[in-house]
């Protein structure tokens, strides 16, 4: 049986790398944003995997559980709490980016980053 935590940590880093690759090299802006969402997902998965405890229990005190047994066997709750916050942060930034893309599409009629986000100083000279 493979080490669950190690497998999941590797998956999370793979997600980060895939997302980073797409955010740097793919030209289509919506795919860039999808890649960014993968980076965020990977980081969240990484932090949750830190909180995992092999052979542990969910950090919820069920009726009838002994508190000292619970304290030494439950998974670590701090990373879980942090991730709950960071999921919402990721979704919010994503929504703002998509809104900007929708408005800019009306102006340029394309999703290509090279056209949409070209160096603005060059663009101004071109307009003149």
């Amino acid at each position: 049986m493979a080490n669950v935590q190690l497998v999941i940590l590797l998956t999370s880093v793979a997600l980060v790398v895939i997302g980073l690759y797409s955010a740097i090299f793919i030209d289509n802006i919506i795919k860039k944003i999808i890649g960014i969402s993968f980076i965020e997902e990977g980081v969240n998965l990484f932090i949750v995997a830190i909180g995992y405890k092999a052979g542990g229990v969910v950090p919820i005190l069920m009726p009838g559980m002994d508190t000292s047994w619970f304290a030494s066997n439950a998974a670590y709750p701090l990373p879980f709490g942090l991730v709950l916050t960071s999921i919402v942060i990721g979704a919010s930034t994503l929504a703002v980016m998509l809104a900007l893309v929708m408005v800019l599409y009306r102006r340029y009629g394309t999703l290509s980053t090279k056209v949409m986000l070209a160096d603005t100083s060059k663009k101004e000279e071109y307009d003149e």
Partner: protein
Amino acid sequence: MSNTTIRNLLAGILTAIFSATLFDAIFHISDMIYPGVSFIYNTLGTQIAPNMVTVVIFDFRAYDTLGESIILLTAGLVVLLIFGRGLLGDKR
């Protein structure tokens, strides 16, 4: 054109080095994890509420949760702003 090719190549090499480092670090980290303050939460939190995660996000770190809700609100407002509501004053 060659300028962008060089830049892409450089970015590719940097990304490759970075991912290799990241994977290398992961192999080390799985036996270096230290519970630290989380263990205290599991000890203390049982006196407050049965679910430790809610104890963390609504008691010990409630201020983060306030920040989270502010972010949600800000994102909503900024999206409305981008679609043209409340742009700066007289210019429109």
